[in-house]
């Protein structure tokens, strides 16, 4: 019997939870704020779905029904991607070691 591809995706999902668990425990507490802003930025990879939705319209009207929601989602996700990565970068630049 063939394995449903859903099972593969589920496996990836569960393994990633474990990877996330161990990786996040190794994050130093002083960087917990950048951790939140960077996880925020990477979860905006949802923009992939937004792009598919936006370009899905078959009619001439680009902004009809489902693709309109896609375009709106692109704006939201893009704010997050740029904002999230840049603000993380800005914060990380500030962490400096003692000058010896």
């Amino acid at each position, binding site marked *: 019997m063939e394995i449903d591809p859903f099972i593969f995706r589920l496996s990836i999902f569960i393994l990633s939870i474990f990877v996330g668990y161990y990786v996040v425990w190794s994050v130093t507490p002083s960087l917990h704020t950048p951790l939140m802003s960077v996880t925020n930025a990477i979860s905006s990879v949802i923009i992939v779905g937004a792009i598919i939705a936006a370009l899905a319209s078959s009619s001439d009207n680009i902004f009809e029904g489902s693709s309109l929601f896609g*375009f709106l989602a692109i704006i939201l996700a893009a704010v997050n*991607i740029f904002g999230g990565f840049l603000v993380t970068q800005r914060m990380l630049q500030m962490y400096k070691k003692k000058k010896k």
Partner: protein
Amino acid sequence: MSANLSALFYLISGILFILALRGLSSPETSRQGNYFGIAGMIISIIVTFLSLGNFGPGFIYVVVFLLIGGSIGAYIAFRIPMTAMPELVAGFHSLVGLAAVFVAISAFLNPEAFGLGSIGAIKLASLIEMSLGAAIGAITFSGSIIAFLKLRGIMSGAPITFKGQHLINLLLGLSIIFLIYYLCISQASNLFWSIVIISFLVGILLIIPIGGADMPVVISMLNSYSGWAAAGIGFTLENTALIITGALVGSSGAILSYIMCKGMNRSFFNVILGGWGASEQTESLQTKEQKPVKNGNADDAAFLMKNASSVIIVPGYGMAVAQAQHALREMVDSLKKNGVKVSYAIHPVAGRMPGHMNVLLAEANVPYDEVFELDEINNDFANCDVAYVIGANDVTNPIAKSDPQSPIYGMPVLDVEKSKSVLFVKRSLSPGYAGIDNDLFYRDNTLMLFADAKKMTEEIVKSL
């Protein structure tokens, strides 16, 4: 681009995102980690364009919208003051949530485009995944908006509770599950819309009973939700990058919530069910009696610290409110010139989000190797001459160790009272968030400095 090839590229993006988080294990590797994250994002976006292969007028619009959103994001990122970081993060969470809702809606309206079947005949698994993604996304969105309003001070930080609140939340939660069940049977679009609307409501009701100082838990929890919402959409779109990222972010937020709850010695449900400060506050105000405190001024404080050999600074949310971090750094600089050894002690739940104090100190150019966590520094208080408590309160209360009746009993606290003298900067003797009196105020070795955190620190700098 073939589906298999793009799936491999999405996997690479996922791995780059893992490396982005891995980089945060130390400040040195963190900047490189952020570049990995950016690379992963660029790969995902380009691969999506190539696999769609649609470079018509729609593509131009997509790029334009991307740049509009991007410029708004970049503008915010450069302009935002570091003290506003908690509300910024809450605001960003709400955007991820809403984006997830929008993508789920378009998948529901146009399932052919995503290869999920046709309208009225969407594959069962996809229907469950997209309604879960939409529901969690909607909860994330409205919950984060409430958190944002509370952190921004537009809405009062006090917990809003009413009778039957938990029952209503439970009923609404159950109704979402029922609606998803019926949606799977009937595929009726009004059921889908009801799920979205009820979820928005749940998000609001879930966050309003949670008070200001519990915000670190709330933000972490919403962080986690935004991850699960992304994962739900990832399953719908059968996209590995999104599934991996969703799982990473989901577990990251969950771990942070756990650390925050542990920092307050409270269970997650205790925080979520809310209303800690609300019931205790009235009680403690009644029982409060006038006890003598020692009152000092900036000159006393400067004298004490100048003649100390070691000083530990304990910052809290009050430092963030007063924006006192730069003044504090100046004070520490002149103390160091006098040969005083200075370090900083950070409680896990100091401030309004995980790591809040660390970012503010980093902004004021405090080297991160002078900043210590609770476990690392707590034993040092016994050997230190002066503890300078600036804007912290409940996290220093010795009652958490001695009085089993106290609501904060068992919470890990900084052993500030063990140092030879304590300088406590505070505007008044009012209790902190937990609504209980701080025993530390009345100790013999405590000198209260009644003033705004920033003004007091600046005055100390002058008299040093």
